[in-house]
């Protein structure tokens, strides 16, 4: 049913349609509206057979989720930013134990400096924690990915993180198609766990494993994710057949025919990039795009196939591996190592900085002229950077960088009278 609805509320409705049995979450911006929406649905009886637990922290939220999933309940939670870091030990435990929890990550920057706005730093901090990580390009895809996520997680007994851009998607009100309960029930069978803590049939989960078997347990986790490389596109095809629209899959190509410059990105910025591609195509540029949905497992083969005819690749990403560059670009380079094709990294949108079409177009045009450097910071204000470097060079006690820059930009009162 078509609705004009906030992304978070739409996701809450979709998650509700998946009939979770335990929801345990701790509020943190920008994910809060999702779990608030689910809380309201449990309270007013729209979501039946679901226990909603309030806890004291994100660490507790995922720990409870681990317990309930191990007891055989379909389990959901959500977090963002520092919340993900606070639960990180449990994040590794959930995947290490093979528990099919679904978690929404409302992507947000990580401090310091504290910043509530969108980027992908939080997801990147957990990129090797063993979860399947799917990035939504739009709110419609965010709705649809959650439905696919429960089926994928439970089939493979692996946790799945659905990454949605904080504010940009979570707080946008748009026209979205919310499926019916019958549709979701037909797509998502009841949870049949591979392991259950049951007092009537006791087992233990979480044994200490020494050097004699740890590698094998880890290898099997990797094997499971490699299996997911096959299952993710199959589930996307099943979904398209059942719901009549495309969502998910490992990646999606956009206007790649004869494209010499190919832009790869994850999440909502791909919408803006598609508009830029259309504009540049209209002016005769040979440019196309790849929207990467599955970041873990990373689809090395399909990425290579999608980019094989490119003369250059531009990866636009909302994260920074300080001291290296772009995380996604590093992964893409691994896929591209057999080709002699330059892969440029464009770091964009950090801490919620807007990513305008004009800036993207300027950057893509520079790339097409082979004038884009290997690591480019979109719209970096060099004047601000250089003034701070100058201050730091002038004296030892130059003060805190963030405060210096805010003062420089006139964004805070220097002195309170």
């Amino acid at each position: 049913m078509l609705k004009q609805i906030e992304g978070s509320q739409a996701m809450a409705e979709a998650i509700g349609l998946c009939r979770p049995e335990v929801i345990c979450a701790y509020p943190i911006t920008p994910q809060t509206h999702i779990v608030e929406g689910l809380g309201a649905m449990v309270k007013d009886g729209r979501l039946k057979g679901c226990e909603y637990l309030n806890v004291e922290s994100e660490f507790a939220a995922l720990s409870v989720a681990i317990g309930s999933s191990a007891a055989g309940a379909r389990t959901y939670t959500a977090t963002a930013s520092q919340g993900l870091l606070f639960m990180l030990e449990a994040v590794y435990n959930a995947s290490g134990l093979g528990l099919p929890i679904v978690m929404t990550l409302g992507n947000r920057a990580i401090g310091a400096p504290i910043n509530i706005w969108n980027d992908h730093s939080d997801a990147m901090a957990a990129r090797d924690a063993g979860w399947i990580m799917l990035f939504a390009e739009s709110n419609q895809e965010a709705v649809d990915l959650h439905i696919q996520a429960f089926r994928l997680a439970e089939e493979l007994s692996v946790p799945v993180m659905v990454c949605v851009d904080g504010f940009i998607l979570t707080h946008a009100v748009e026209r979205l198609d919310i499926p019916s309960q019958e549709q979701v029930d037909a797509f998502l069978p009841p949870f049949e766990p591979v392991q259950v803590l049951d007092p009537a049939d006791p087992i233990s989960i979480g044994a200490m494993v020494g050097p004699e078997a740890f590698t094998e347990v880890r290898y099997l986790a990797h094997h499971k994710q490699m299996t997911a490389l096959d299952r993710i596109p199959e589930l996307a095809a099943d979904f398209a057949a059942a719901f009549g629209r495309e969502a998910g899959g490992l990646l999606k190509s956009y206007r790649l025919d004869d494209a010499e410059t190919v832009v790869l990105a994850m999440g909502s910025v791909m919408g803006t990039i598609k508009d830029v591609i259309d504009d540049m195509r209209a002016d005769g540029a040979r440019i196309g795009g790849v929207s990467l949905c599955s970041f873990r497992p990373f689809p090395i083969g399909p990425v290579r196939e999608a980019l094989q005819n490119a003369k250059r690749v531009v990866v636009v990403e909302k994260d920074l591996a300080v001291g290296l560059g772009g995380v996604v670009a590093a992964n893409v380079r691994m896929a591209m190592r057999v080709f002699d094709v330059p892969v440029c990294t464009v770091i964009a949108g950090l801490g919620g900085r807007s990513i305008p079409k004009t800036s993207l177009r300027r950057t893509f045009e520079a790339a097409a002229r082979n004038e884009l450097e290997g690591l480019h910071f979109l719209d970096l204000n060099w004047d601000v950077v250089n003034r701070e470097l100058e201050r730091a060079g002038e004296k030892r006690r130059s003060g805190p960088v963030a405060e210096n820059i805010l003062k420089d930009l006139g964004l805070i009162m220097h002195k309170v009278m």
Partner: protein
Amino acid sequence: MFQVRIHGRGGQGVVTGAEMLSVAAFLEGKHAQAFPSFGSERMGAPVVSYCRIDDREIRLREPILVPDALIIQDPTLLNSVDVFQGLPDSGYILINSARGFAELGLGEYITRFQASRVCCIGATDMALRHVGRPVPNAALLGGFAAITGLIKLESVNEAILETFPGKVGAGNVAAAAAAFDAVKAH
């Protein structure tokens, strides 16, 4: 695509205004995308919200830098925020003020725009009269419907009632109608 930027202060329903506008457009079968400028939602702080309306799916995720229409919910922002940033001469301006452009110090600036596309209305007074609270967002949407002709007043009313059921909704519908008439009489 038609792009609307709404400027106001926290507590004036700036975000809800953009959302109701998107619902009104949705009710007319259009695609619409409403979103706030995030993070500054404090009472009294300058707040911006955005609404894009189009006949096809909206993929663009940048803030609205070149608006087709501006709704200024609080004229005191004129002294502190560059509310007119990016507005082309073909744009629409609707300001919540019982005073005219000349009194607001905009008499000369406003001459570059088509006279039928700029208007001041006392939306706060209308909200106080019909709703009992100084929240001008719904009234201004009635004014927006009148000045742009982009959406019908009936759609605005339906969006208001969807957001505010009952007495508050009815009051806001009355305020929107008053604003619609005030702009039409302008």
